[in-house]
């Protein structure tokens, strides 16, 4: 594996490779990407929502009972396979299964380091208002969508005119009152 890695690095020195091999390896590293986001956000003079690495078995019961208002996630994961909130169905058994699978995948012989678990604050607006997905090519904003979770998939809407932040107070007020 190490020889393959060195070979890919050597190739990038003579030609353009896209995606870059390092990006392939770091694709699911949410904590690395969050570190970049934190640095960029702080350089704009804003606060960024802090993540904290945890032992998942220490916090899952607090999340389920509502004593900890947070979402438990794992890096190197996709399709919400490793996302646990107070709304997750059968969370403790699911988490135990995840950890068993993780031990088998990332045993002592694994080339890759064991992924970390972390918590982030629970954000009601994500559920109600959705997320903006902005596609940028060559530094140009090409397209923006708003996606709102709608079982089993999404409700997707083009974002031609985003609601200005100054007008969100009226849109969001009832959500915060209910939380």
């Amino acid at each position, binding site marked *: 594996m190490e020889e393959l890695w060195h070979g890919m690095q050597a190739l990038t020195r003579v030609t353009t490779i896209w995606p870059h091999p*390092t990006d392939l390896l770091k694709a699911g590293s949410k904590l690395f990407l969050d570190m*970049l986001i934190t640095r960029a956000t702080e350089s704009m003079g804003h*606060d*960024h929502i802090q993540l904290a690495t945890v032992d998942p078995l220490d916090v899952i019961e607090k999340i389920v009972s509502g004593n900890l208002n947070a979402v438990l996630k794992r890096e190197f994961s996709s399709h919400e396979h490793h996302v646990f909130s107070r709304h997750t169905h059968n969370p403790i058994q699911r988490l135990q299964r995840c950890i068993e699978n993780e031990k088998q995948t990332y045993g002592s012989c694994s080339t890759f380091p064991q992924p970390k678990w972390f918590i982030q604050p629970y954000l009601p607006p994500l559920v109600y208002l959705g997320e903006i997905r902005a596609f940028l090519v060559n530094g140009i904003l090409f397209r923006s*969508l708003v996606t709102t979770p709608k079982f089993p998939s999404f409700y997707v809407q083009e974002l031609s005119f985003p609601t200005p932040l100054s*007008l969100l107070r009226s849109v969001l007020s009832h959500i915060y009152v209910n939380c």
Partner: protein
Amino acid sequence: MPNLAASSLSPHEEDVDNTLTQFILNMLYRLIVAEEHFSNRPSTMRIFVRIDISVYRHEGGFHYFVNELTRSHQSGLFMHWDVSGKMEGCIQELAKVLHYVTYQRQWNKNFPL
């Protein structure tokens, strides 16, 4: 259901210093600088990135924040909902950019990407 897309908008209601587009482009620049500082190589966010943005309330006001970054094969493109064909244009532009950086690299050995 209310969401982040306005059904109607007067230009007078937009705070020009705090628009979504300005936030995204400002953030892209800073993300690239941060990544190139840590990785010591050109960031591929110069070519393509999908930035996922949400809104949170802090000290009485609302703010955008970056929730996630995805690039290359990892980015879902939501093609299923692309009835207008806008994403096709985005992909064609990406193909042109990849040709551009590759040829620049051949002609100019100091070209960063």
